[in-house]
């Protein structure tokens, strides 16, 4: 019985960890080596902070002042 429970728990761990890890590895393997993750320039300044509601964005980002990164 304990062996069966251990196997079930182990399989749950490995499945959920795969769900977490595999997409990240696929993303890393598919991106170009010279890939630039984020950039901002004169031609695409529509995301200026002057137009951003920080409070709303923090709320949407599920972050608040007490959250530590």
């Amino acid at each position, binding site marked *: 019985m304990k062996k069966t429970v251990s196997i079930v728990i182990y399989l749950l761990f490995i499945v959920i960890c795969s769900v977490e890890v595999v997409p990240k590895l696929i993303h890393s393997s598919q991106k170009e080596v010279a890939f630039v993750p984020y950039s901002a320039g004169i031609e695409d300044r529509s995301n200026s902070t002057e137009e951003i509601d920080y409070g709303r*964005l923090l709320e949407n980002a599920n972050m608040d002042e007490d959250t*530590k990164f």
Partner: protein
Amino acid sequence: MARFKNILIVVLIPLALVLSWAGGEYQVQSVTIERIQNISDEISEVNRVDDHLFRGRNLSSGAPIYIALENKPSYGGPLTVATVVNDQKQIEHVAILQSSDTSSYLQKVVGLGVLSVFVKQPVDALPQIDVISGATISSSAIMRGIERAANRVGVAEFGLSEITETKEKATPETAKLSTVFLLFAAAWFLTSKKFPLSRRNSRWALMVTSVITIGVMYGALLSLSTLVILISGSWTHGLASYAPLLCLVLAGAAYLLTKKNLYCSVICPFGAVQEGLGMITGCSSPVRTGWMQWLTRLWVFVLLAAALYFHAPSDAIYEPFGKAFNFIGSSAVYILTIIVVISSLIVRRPWCVLFCPASVLFDYFKLARSIFEKRDGQLSGLGGGK
């Protein structure tokens, strides 16, 4: 023969991991200029001036442009930013070229406007922006990196004076490192023959202290990404905190020198929480079969090699520590945390025994140590030295 096989395994595993890292490093180093040109279609004819400074031309106007790179320590490791300045001392583009932070988290930080606020600004009068609450370390790395890179161009190309970096608000790094060191020293004393008090009670006192400090306050648990950071050497470029790295080094050193797994048995906050939950029901340890051990070892090795090759420590993060103590992590990690909590009531320390990468690491240490002992060690059946 068994001894020779063990030596081969002990040598080949780190060699394979270092080769994985070197393969990725070779690719990254050879594409710096290509990466700069990928910031915008307007950037062309890029030439290297020194390690941090480049010159190029604006494709439309033909005017010269100056590009500077800067590394800053961020949440997951070093972060590289680029600042592109035109001949009018104005910033044309800013970019994050490389980061070890989790991509979904970095996306949220960038979405707050930490890049676009610098565009069109003159290098000699940059906006004074404080860090963003809730994303202090990463936003600081990005913004201070851009400012430093802009100043680098200003000094080299426009004769501006070098700006001395204002020191960030003091972090409790010394307190973190001291706490980790003291916990290991106390754990070592606890397991020594000279310890005069009740070992059981003292062990619990240490574990509770570790949960509060290393777990909740500092979030400095040892994880697989810590090992990636150590092997890749990215810690030499700066880290937000060296506490997990110190945990790893002290845990390894203590095991190799004294054969005591102080981290797993006394210090690991996540192990302490699982053990505390197990005490409620009085459950016993789960059954760890041979195929589980080998599958976990294979999982850890493949993940380490991949994260080293891609230079992405965050790719190796799957442990539920962040969610358990600091509420950081994805939905999958959230579900995993709940499963670990529930299963801790059924079997004792399920994560530690069945799937924790630290147990694989200590299996390796045990094998490495066995080489120097008279008796041959065997890879199968090693239990992490608990």
